[in-house]
């Protein structure tokens, strides 16, 4: 589905990414792990074409990705944000239409998601009237409303209580089962173990670990993913 080939990016003298090669397979959940500042967000921004790589290329279904392809991505950034004064329905429909949905399709999709999360009564509230958790739910809906083929979630569970986090996990798994490909960036190792089929660990602008969850588990017998993470990062840093 998505092929990341020799991507490098630097900001001034700081090298954010160095020769990154990754392969994300269709219909799987891909965990993108790494300590803070490792370059995960930069990589995600390059995939989204918010930033351009200095060198290397990104292939989607075998062809170099274009601005138009970004329409088929659903992206939930780590720093969440919505128009505070806009109403829920109006805002969700606006953002979906920017992704290319017709007004009708956007309305239908929104209705479906509000029902699924049992929050139809929110439609006419302004965002600032919602609690932080409610805003997170809306942000998730806005990300998936246009039924994207590729989903990128950056720390999707932060700010959610266990009940709602679980609801989100079920939705992510369901979308995967329906054929979507998911890139999941998280520091929550339990969720990663629970959801991901493949993982990659980025540290200090390099890929240091890449494979299916089973392979990586097999290489480090009787270690939790958390311990594997800590061990790999500290080995590399020393």
């Amino acid at each position, binding site marked *: 589905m998505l092929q990341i080939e020799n991507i490098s990016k630097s900001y001034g003298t700081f090298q954010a990414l160095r020769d990154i090669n990754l392969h994300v397979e269709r219909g799987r959940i891909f965990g993108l792990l790494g300590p803070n500042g490792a370059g995960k967000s930069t990589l995600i*921004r390059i995939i*989204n*074409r*918010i*930033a*351009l790589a200095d060198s290397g290329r990104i292939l989607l279904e075998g062809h170099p990705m274009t*601005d138009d392809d*970004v*329409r088929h*991505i659903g*992206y939930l*950034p780590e*720093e*969440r*944000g*919505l*128009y*505070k*004064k*806009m109403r829920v329905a109006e805002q969700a429909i*606006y*953002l979906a*239409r*920017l*992704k*290319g949905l017709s007004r009708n399709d956007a309305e239908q999709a929104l209705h479906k998601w509000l029902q699924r999360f049992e929050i139809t009564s929110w439609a006419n509230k302004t965002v600032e009237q919602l609690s932080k958790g409610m805003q997170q739910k809306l942000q998730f809906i*806005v*990300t998936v409303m246009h039924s994207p083929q590729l989903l990128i979630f950056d720390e999707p569970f932060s700010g959610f209580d266990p009940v709602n986090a679980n609801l989100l996990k079920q939705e992510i798994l369901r979308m995967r089962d329906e054929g979507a490909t998911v890139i999941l960036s998280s520091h929550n190792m339990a969720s990663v173990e629970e959801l991901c089929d493949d993982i990659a660990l980025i540290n200090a602008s390099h890929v240091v670990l890449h494979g299916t969850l089973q392979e990586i588990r097999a290489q480090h017998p009787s270690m939790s993913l958390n311990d594997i993470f800590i061990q790999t990062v500290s080995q590399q840093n020393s």
Partner: protein
Amino acid sequence: MKKILLVIQREYATRVRKLSFWILTILVPLLLAGVYAIPIFLATNSIEHVNVMVVDDSGVFSGQFVSSHDITYIDAANLTYAERQLKEQDTIDAVLYIPARTTTIPTDAFLYYRSDKPTTQVQSDVDNQLQTLLRDNILLDVHNISAEDYAMITKTRITLHQLDLETGRDGFLQVKIILATVLTIIIFMIIFMFGSQVMRGVAEEKNSRIVEVIVCSVRPFQLMMGKVIGIGLVGLTQFALWLTLSGVAVGVLQASNSELFEQARQQINISEVATKGSEATAQMAAADQQGLASELMQGLASIDFGIILLMFLFFFIFGYLLYASLFAAIGSLVDADTDSQQFTLPVTIPLMLPMLLMPAMMNAPSGPLATWLSIIPFTSPIAMMFRIPFGVPIWQIALSMSLLLATFPLCTWIAARIYKAAILYYGNKISYRDLFRWMKQKR
């Protein structure tokens, strides 16, 4: 293209639906109607009747003060009596005392009043009557001139006509200065107000972080231009509503209070008559009054408002486009903690310059300062609106317009470059060096 329309639509709809938009839309015409109506109400309602006791020990003025609708003059025999009346009687509001003469012509007079009474109207009425009566006294009694001579001296006036060299007609300079000032203030206010809205809107999108989601669907340039155009359309809508509502408000005021207007006009005439004291000057004053009113009417009639409106729309639209994109760039530099002051000033200074230099332009609307300000693109939208009522050579208008048309895409291009980089840049304080780097870099 479809996406930019969606952005425009959102910017327009969310703003036009705001209560503050409608409050401002209604407030400005009301304010205008108020400014128009207040002097009329003041002229008809505010004057309380005043009784002034006159004690004339000089013998020059006795019995000659003319009472009017608002002021009654009563002669009194001596100051002691008058002062007691002023102290004890509520009906007496002031005492005018002219001491006995030491020279042929009296030089001083005194007005006593209770602390709550000295209205400027009474003061000026007393003063005017004193001067006129004294002049009459000197001419008629001291110099013994004939009635014809007296009439000739007091009635004769020379009228100064101001003629425009090209048309050979009255230039109505006063009317033009007022119009120019009003136009300049309006175009400055609109560009500044809606430019700031663009800046705040961009800063809001950046700091609420929604911009990261939006730039995945829309190119930053489209987002910026959508915002600039959407808010510009809000500005045009507001301007159109102001124009219509102001017209309606003034019309309604005039129609519903036609009696009041007539009354006010008469009132002004009567008090003029009273102040001038003598018949002759009263007629002259009435003529003056009508002269001023008719000059105003003729002056306004001589101005082509169609052309002014077209010019206004052109310089508003392109002046706004020039500044709005720069304001958008500034908005993209605003981080929650850092202040944008250092970047705002370079943009607001050229915008304010013509306002600050307006007194100088007033002295010479076609002088080199006004001419250059109206041609240089950053000051031209505002300075040109000041010059238009005075008449501007076609070639200067054409030059100013083409320079503005050529500059705004350039400004937009530079602004878009900065905007693109800055909108996703958080954390460190942004310096001018960063700006130059961003102007050159791609994405």
